[in-house]
């Protein structure tokens, strides 16, 4: 394929493709990513922890990235491969856009990410899996869209919210109860932060809202206006509100069973 950087790279410099030997000890793992649709687009947040076995390897790792002007990718799993995968994916999208003079369709982008995961399959089977979430603004459909993946490159469209990584199950539980896809951006981000708080509450590999160090989840938004990263001050303000409320109700906002 002429317009694909990945295919070109495979031909001319396959040694630069993201890979490590299986059995490499003490790999650094990135943990939880969550995303949700709201009425004008999608938001994604990632916690900042990376672990090495049971130790915390990093407190301020970034796992959520703008893939291009209208899409966002977040990756959980072996950090070294994940970050390289994202870098390659960014070049792949930009390369296509420059060669063809127009950007890939949203499904086209999601499919390219599938192809990259499939090429990592042999590594995934050795336990070196990376799992992305891909979300963004689909200009043709004029709405926010989200895809989750499995290690074999299978992609699945998600409609309200999705999560990936070690704390994903706990985060999903929280989002189920708290998130409303018809809400505004701020409320959607608040739901994401609540879900990361809950993930950190029950999963030792996920960091929550670290007021002590001032390290907060990374939040990106994609809407018709493009991709924007939430300022640290904006996330801090929401985080402080949430942590203050949790001081009186540690398990978070109360719902109604009936």
């Amino acid at each position: 394929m002429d317009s694909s950087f990945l295919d070109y790279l495979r031909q001319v410099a396959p040694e630069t493709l993201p890979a490590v030997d299986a059995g490499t000890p003490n790999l650094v793992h990135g943990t939880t990513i969550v995303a949700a649709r709201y009425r004008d687009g999608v938001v994604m947040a990632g916690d900042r922890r990376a672990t090495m076995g049971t130790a915390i390897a990093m407190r301020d790792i970034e796992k959520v990235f703008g893939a291009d002007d209208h899409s966002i990718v977040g990756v959980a799993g072996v950090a070294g491969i994940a970050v390289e995968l994202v870098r390659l994916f960014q070049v792949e999208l930009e390369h296509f856009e420059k060669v063809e003079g127009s950007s890939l369709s949203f499904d086209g982008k999601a499919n390219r990410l599938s192809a990259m995961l499939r090429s990592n399959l042999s590594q995934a089977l050795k336990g070196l899996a990376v799992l992305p979430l891909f979300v963004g603004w689909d200009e043709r459909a004029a709405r926010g869209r989200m895809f989750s993946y499995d290690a074999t490159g299978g992609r699945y469209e998600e409609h309200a919210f999705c999560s990936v990584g070690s704390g994903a199950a706990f985060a999903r539980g929280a989002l189920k109860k708290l998130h409303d896809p018809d809400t505004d951006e701020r409320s959607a981000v608040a739901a994401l932060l609540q879900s990361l708080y809950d993930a950190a509450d029950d999963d030792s590999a996920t960091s929550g809202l670290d007021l002590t160090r001032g390290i907060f989840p990374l939040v990106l938004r994609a809407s018709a206006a493009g991709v924007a990263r939430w300022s640290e001050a904006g996330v801090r303000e929401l985080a402080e509100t949430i942590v203050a409320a949790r001081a009186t109700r540690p398990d978070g906002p109360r719902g109604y069973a009936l």
Partner: protein
Amino acid sequence: MSMPFYVSPEQQMQDRAEFARKGIARGRAVVVLRYAGGIVLVAENRSTTLNKVAEIYDRIAFAAVGRYNEFETLRVAGIRHADLRGYSYDRRDVTGRSLAGAYSQLLGGAFSSAAEKPYEVELIVAELGEEPSGDVLYRISYDGVITDEPDLVVIGGDAERIAEAVRGGFSADAALNDAVDLARRALGTDQLEVAVLERDTPRRRTFRRLRPDEVARD
């Protein structure tokens, strides 16, 4: 068995140069010049889809005249060169000089190899500096000869006359509209394809195509 006629190397090179020059002179010209906000690339182009100016990298643009299929191949090769370098090293390690050098090798090789047809193209590689003094315009001709120009370059049919006209009205502090108007007058046409490398954009990628209504005559 017939013997081939002896042709002196000088004659051979001259013939090849003439062949390439003829092909290029038939094409419409491209003007690339600096303005207050960066570098503007203006091509006379009747097509709205077959481009003569294009984005190569964050701060590097490409302009070409001559055979479309040949410079299209060169454009894609340039994007691959730049993206591969940027991926293997770092985005800041992709320079106009290395790209212009690669083009020069390619065109020069084809020009002097008896087995290949010389490229019937001329190229411009424009690189936007962080500061205006860092702007560079490389011109690469069909035989691989590469020159760097400080303020403006014109390639294609009637290039010398057009360059003269542009130089007469040139100012590095001109507004974008004025720079485009200057190029429009020199080219003598309204069918323009215009793109810029903008210094003040918040985007990492500084290349932007101007819509027809942005370049329309006031």
